[in-house]
């Protein structure tokens, strides 16, 4: 698959603190890529580096497989940490500045994004008069303007009410369907689980894991089995029923169940009764949360 962003061995220190340690990551085109991690895990540092706000101590990154240049950033709509706008300018004037710098969109695009983020009625109010949620929505609007190829959103639902959060979630889903690559940093597991196709988990500046969501974080029960004769085992398991899917992986078979529905005893006796002795019988009950805690706890 085509790569949108690749990061190679990036490290960054702030005085004594090592914020990122030799981080490498590739983000495929068209994915909704969630970057998870507890507070202070390096999510924002990573995003700041690929936006040239911070300079990495070592390592490289590349957008669209091209050499680094500010021209590439114009193809990225980004919201980093906080909504950053001129307090004395209205929403429309602020977006005009964004537009003039990024070269994305026109006057019609400004109205369009203000409509999407539901700020049309207040479009001529000064930014300083906005509530926290409205500021956040304006920042999302600015990132969306002129259909960038990539959206980079750092905690996009900060300060939004539950309805606002749901709206943003739907918005992200619909943008993903249009083929826009979306990179989201968040510590809200639920949010990531609902919209992301891929995920990476960071802790204290180290990448713990990354890959497609259903591989990394699973909300199902997973049972792994293996036997000397894998072909026979596969047939036997297929006859068993009660599962949602079977995946073959290297030297073992993964049986996926709806959450809470796996029964190791039953599997074991079923196999034994069919003349198969299991070499491996392992329960992998992983919810997103437990996976996250498992990975991020010491």
């Amino acid at each position, binding site marked *: 698959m085509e790569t949108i962003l690749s990061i190679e061995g990036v490290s960054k220190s702030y005085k004594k603190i090592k914020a990122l340690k030799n981080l490498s990551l590739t983000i495929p085109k068209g994915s909704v890529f969630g970057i998870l991690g507890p507070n202070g895990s390096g999510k924002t540092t990573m995003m700041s580096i690929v*936006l040239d706000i911070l300079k990495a101590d070592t390592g490289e990154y590349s957008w669209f497989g091209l050499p680094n240049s500010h021209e590439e950033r114009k193809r990225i709509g980004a919201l980093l940490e906080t909504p950053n706008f001129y307090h004395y*300018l209205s929403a429309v*004037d602020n977006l005009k500045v964004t537009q003039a710098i990024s070269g994305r969109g026109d006057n019609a695009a400004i109205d369009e994004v203000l409509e999407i983020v539901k700020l049309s009625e207040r479009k001529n109010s000064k930014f300083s008069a906005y509530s926290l949620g409205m500021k956040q929505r304006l920042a999302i609007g600015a990132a969306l303007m002129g259909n960038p190829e990539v959206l980079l959103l750092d905690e996009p639902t900060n300060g939004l009410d539950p309805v606002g959060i749901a709206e943003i979630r739907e918005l992200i889903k619909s943008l993903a369907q249009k083929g826009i690559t979306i990179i989201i940093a968040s510590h809200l597991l639920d949010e990531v689980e609902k919209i992301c196709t891929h995920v990476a988990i960071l802790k204290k500046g180290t990448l713990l894991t990354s890959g497609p969501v259903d591989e990394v974080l699973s909300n199902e029960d997973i049972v792994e089995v293996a036997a000397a004769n894998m072909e026979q085992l596969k047939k036997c398991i297929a006859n068993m029923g009660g599962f949602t899917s079977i995946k073959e992986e290297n030297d073992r078979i993964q049986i996926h169940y709806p959450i809470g529905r796996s029964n190791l005893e039953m599997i074991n006796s079923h196999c034994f009764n069919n003349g198969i002795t299991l070499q491996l019988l392992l329960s992998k009950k992983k919810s997103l949360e437990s996976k996250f805690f498992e990975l991020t706890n010491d």
Partner: protein
Amino acid sequence: MKNLINIEWLKIKKYPAFWGMLIIVMLTYPGINSMVYYGYMEVISGKDMVNQVAKMVLGNPFAFPETWHSVAYLSSFFVLLPAILVIMLVTNEYNYRTHRQNIIDGWSRTQFINSKLVDVSIISCIVTLVYIVVAIGFGIYADSISWGRWAEQLEYIPLFFLQTFAQLSIAFILGYLVKKAFIALGIFLFYYVILENIAVGLLKWKKIPIDRFLPIRMSNNLIVKPALQRTFGAAAKADYELQLSLVPQQVLLTIAFTAIIWMICYRVNNKRDIV
């Protein structure tokens, strides 16, 4: 470049402090010049012998072409007003964190400093424009006969611009490096009003002739104090002539010093983390 000017003008034209500064400048420039002008009128309108002598030796400093020089000299004391605005414009970017957003949105780091260079240029141009209008106004008002000589001494326009630009650049680098408006402004004020004047006084007292190399003094000397007392003694006259002859040197010094200021800004901005 045109794009940069458009963006900066969008930021500036809706900034209330900009219009505040402009109004105050438009009041102070004519104000300070009027005070001196009417002071002068009072002196020469007296019937005494002294008054008549004063009239003869002083000439009319507000008639063309002297108005270019006099108004430039008197107005240049008020560079503090646009300096406040320049400091606000750069520290605002830090307050609003738009210095990051501009980069995120697609400016290169160099373009960010370019945009600030545009800010300082725009403000210097506007202030110079106010100066030109005031100088012309006084020229016509003070002596309607001499206005045919308006085209003489026009060099004071670029000199005034250069002085303003140079001193606003000092204000800019303070705001840019210190990041906090009030601290930057405090340092600028303290240096401009007190510290350098003490240094100048000290150097003169010790008879070390290097005061013209001090940052503010360097560009202040572009516009020599008008020779209101030019024939009041040979020493004063000699000094005036000396100062005038040094102006080309001061121009070069000021340009070099200002270029260094901006080079530092570019260098720092290209290397540092934008936090």
